[in-house]
């Protein structure tokens, strides 16, 4: 399965997980079957409005089935929920530790938005 992780930087598995979703600078797309990943720039990071919507659309289009992020707003949440993408909250650490926690089922899943509109 493909997991999308919101990142603060483009530094491989050592990249810090971003506390925000819509305007995070990068996304990691991690493939759990092959253990490979790619890091993509978030095209929504400087959107005039609706960054959460655009970022969520990008994650949907990439075929992710799960998202790991520090927080997530209401619009991004409703887009991801519509595509039945599972959302997990990770408030600190890097991509590597986030993936370890994910595999140990130690990340809490988000059934609703964790941040108000315009938080990121």
């Amino acid at each position, binding site marked *: 399965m493909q997991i999308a992780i919101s990142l603060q930087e483009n530094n491989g598995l050592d990249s810090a997980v971003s506390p925000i979703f819509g305007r995070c600078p990068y996304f990691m797309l991690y493939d759990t079957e092959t253990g490979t990943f790619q890091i993509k720039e978030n095209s929504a990071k400087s*959107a005039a*409005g*609706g960054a959460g*919507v*655009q970022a*969520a*659309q990008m994650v949907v*289009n990439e075929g992710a089935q799960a998202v790991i992020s520090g927080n997530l707003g209401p619009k991004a949440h*409703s887009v991801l929920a519509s*595509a039945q993408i599972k959302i997990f909250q990770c408030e600190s650490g890097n991509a590597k530790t986030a993936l370890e926690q994910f595999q140990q089922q130690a990340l809490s899943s988000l059934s609703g938005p964790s941040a108000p509109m315009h938080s990121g």
Partner: protein
Amino acid sequence: MRIAIASGKGGTGKTTIAANLAQSCARRSKNEVWLLDCDVEAPNAALFLQPTFDQEKESIRLMPIFNQEKCDGCGHCAQVCTYNAIAVAGGKVIFFKELCHACGSCTLNCPQAAITEEPETIGWLQAGHSDELNFAQGKLKIGFSSPVPVIRDLKKWALQNASQEALIFLDASPGCTCPVVETLRDADAALLVTEPTPFGLHDLKLIVQVVQDQMELPCGVVLNKSGENDGLIEDFCTEKQIPILMRLPLSRQIAQVYSEGTLLIDALPELEKPFQMLADQLQSFEKQNPEVGK
């Protein structure tokens, strides 16, 4: 000729200047004179002009309606939406109405013709008279966030029968964002109202960037609340070659007349002449003389 009155900073006296200038012109001009209050989020020129309204119209915009049965989830609508108001996920359209600018791109680009449009009220327009002055204003519906379509509608509707020779003043909202740009669009000149304070100067610099650098409109400045700190504004205007067309002193008497909702030209007849001179100078900014004030 169309003259927009803008300021950058709020509270510098745009509406006071606009109302007095327009009424002063209307009283002595043979041609039609108009004032449009384009500050549709807080229209208040009517407080000073006490107009009688004889025409009203709803301002509407066309919002997309998505027919989920016809939709095949292709995602074209989300791709063409500049405002990120549409996402397509799980084969379904998710529409965020509050982000929509009613541009119509999704409707035009849907290969399945699954999007239709229906009108939504976004505000109200009123037109009438205050003595010889033609006056119109728009009011944005409470809860609706974008004034731009109401301003566009107001200009089109109110001025549809205005004569070619009409002198038209457009009172903009404060700031330098979309509503101000919409007000300035197709103006022949801009009058920038400022005050001799650091905030006044800061925001004057921003509006000059819009008016002079981006829109290339001739402009002039009214220095309101003028006094010992005028140098702040004078230095900048000299540098940018923008003429200061009028100064209104910082005076308790002027503030009191304003607070009573009375026109300055009625309560303080000595101000009639400066407003007339201001109008004459602005009219010399016609486009055939583009070097003036640029």
